[in-house]
């Protein structure tokens, strides 16, 4: 009879080991899935994890790692703060879209003026847009006790409709011959989130993501607010006695994650995506949830997890074009990773004991 016995302290070893074991399990299960689809599993896994880094065309794919990883890390860092405190912002995708709209909106309002101040203003607008969108569930939760999970998620669908409206209406390129989508920022130097060092994929979003990692690390380890966040998540009652204000915590966590998601959206739309279009968002807001958990809600972990997830995106695309692996298989692969992670995580807090059934 297998029995779980609670550990007095979470195991340090398993805290680090869980993500690794989960990745290996996902590779095995994913390989099984790919072979069911009639592909060579070893080849498919190698294409996803090896090809982008060390393959023939790695010089092209490596920069993509930063381009795709940056938004994931930026969003996941924000989400992790809330997740630690038991505040669930599931609507990062919506905040990402709104941040892109406000950021791009400000940039396009200045067109065709040129000036160094335009891009910083777009950044502020993007962060502000995401923040406002996240404040809706935050205020509804603190004021009325409304469930922030459902509200933030509903707002994703609202944001998608708003995006469609803006891409076809207000932000549409007046010189675009009636095609949907805004002006392309690549042709507008002051508003373009350009590559900082050619051939590296390094853009302002990557810089922002790195700064966010550092700030989050300092906040969680060296600041009283970070301590309160951790306390509220691990021992809500103790937190209340210690005078931690739940209202402030909700406003801070949702606001920060919203602002970071909005910022990520703005960097995406003015750089890699280039323009506001109906489907410029590719689900980074949802994938970031997996990244946050895979990184164990730890800033450095999230950085690594974000890069790994970016790798599966890029490798997935290669596998799509080279092996004809369906895009949905990659999506499932990512979902599987979260499953294994959650399942194996039990070993962090529990010991598995084999014992004979006791006679009561």
């Amino acid at each position, binding site marked *: 009879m297998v029995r779980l016995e609670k550990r007095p302290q979470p195991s340090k070893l398993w805290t680090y080991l869980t993500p690794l074991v989960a990745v290996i399990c996902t590779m095995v299960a994913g390989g099984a899935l790919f072979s069911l689809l009639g592909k060579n599993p070893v080849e498919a896994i190698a294409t996803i994890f090896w090809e982008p880094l060390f393959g023939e065309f790695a010089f092209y794919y490596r920069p993509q790692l930063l381009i795709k990883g940056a938004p994931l890390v930026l969003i996941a860092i924000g989400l992790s703060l809330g997740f630690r405190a038991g505040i669930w912002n599931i609507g990062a995708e919506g905040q990402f879209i709104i941040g892109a709209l406000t950021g791009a909106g400000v940039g396009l309002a200045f067109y065709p003026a040129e000036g160094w101040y335009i891009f910083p203003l777009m950044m502020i607008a993007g962060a502000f847009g995401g923040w406002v969108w996240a404040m809706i569930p935050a205020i*509804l939760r603190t004021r*009325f006790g409304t469930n922030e999970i*459902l509200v933030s998620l*509903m707002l994703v*669908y609202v944001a998608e409709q708003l995006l469609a409206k803006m891409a076809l209406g207000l932000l549409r390129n007046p010189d675009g011959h009636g095609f949907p989508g805004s002006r392309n920022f690549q042709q507008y130097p002051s508003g373009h989130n350009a590559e900082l060092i050619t051939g590296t994929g390094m853009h302002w979003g990557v810089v922002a993501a790195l700064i966010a990692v550092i700030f989050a690390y300092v906040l969680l380890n060296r600041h009283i607010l970070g301590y309160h966040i951790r306390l509220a998540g691990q021992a809500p009652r103790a937190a209340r006695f210690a005078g931690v204000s739940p209202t402030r915590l909700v406003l801070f966590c949702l606001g920060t994650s919203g602002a970071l998601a909005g910022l990520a959206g703005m960097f995406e739309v003015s750089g890699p995506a280039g323009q506001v279009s109906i489907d410029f968002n590719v689900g980074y807001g949802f994938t970031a949830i997996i990244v946050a958990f895979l990184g164990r809600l730890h800033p450095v972990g999230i950085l690594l997890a974000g890069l790994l997830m970016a790798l599966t995106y890029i490798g997935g695309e290669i596998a799509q074009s080279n092996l004809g692996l369906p895009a*949905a298989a990659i*999506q*499932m692969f990512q979902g599987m990773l979260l499953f294994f992670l*959650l*399942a194996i995580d039990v070993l962090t807090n529990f010991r598995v004991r084999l014992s004979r059934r006791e006679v009561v």
Partner: protein
Amino acid sequence: MMDLGSISPTLLLASLMVAATPILLAALGELVVERAGVLNLGVEGMMITGAICGFAIAVNTGSPTLGFIAAALGGAALSLLFAILTQVALANHVASGLALTLFGLGLSALLGQGYVGIKPPATDKLDIPVLSDLPVVGPVLFAHDPMVYVGLALTLAVWFVLNRTRAGLILRAVGENHDAAHALGYKVVRVRVMAILFGGACAGLGGAYISLIRVPQWTEGMTAGVGWIALALVVFASWRAGRVMLGAYLFGGVTVLQLNLQAAGVALPVEYLSMSPYIITILVLVIMSAERNRAPASLGRTFHASN
């Protein structure tokens, strides 16, 4: 051009019943799950999996009935993963539910690759000699596909089992205080796993209703947040079966009215009308959360028998 006269109230009421059924089925399942103390946020994932399982089997066998059975099984199979995660591996309910939704969306897209653009076999509508031909009442109440009535019957059954039977009492005990229920000798984990499977089957049925009857065809991500609305509905209903039905018809009404207004060419842009069901869900949630919290006391808490 606005032409409100083109909206027929009879047709509106009749299509309201159809629009409400998937939400009703999924929400009833989730209601039972939450009354057992489990918060499964994977409804959307289970619905979309049910939608494609039902669609694929119905297309391949030509039988919608078999399709619905397959959908229930598919939804339940996916929910079994959630049950293993939360009840055996003691994982966080919120995270596991999200994982289920992300996984389900990927799985359904993969399964559905060959089914885009196909029409499923039609489901027969009820045709009771005199009743179905009655003016107004006939088309609104007595001329639907059988699943509409399954939804209604299920509401009644869930209400009866939860409130009038011993099994329901045990399920509620597990949901209100799992430690006490365990001390009384009830199998907390077993009860919860069964509730989760029931919830998965119901969500699967709801999903298949969308792909086989409501739309009817298969497109990726076609449930478009209905699963999440169903989750909101359970809160709206204060965890009571009768009010779940009421809420489902309310949301069904909003959806149908919104679609009719779009067709009638109301001066509001289509996008704003399309976001209305989500905004109304939020408003309703806000209004309901002002009321006293009636959530099951152990909702979302992990149970581990220490001995």
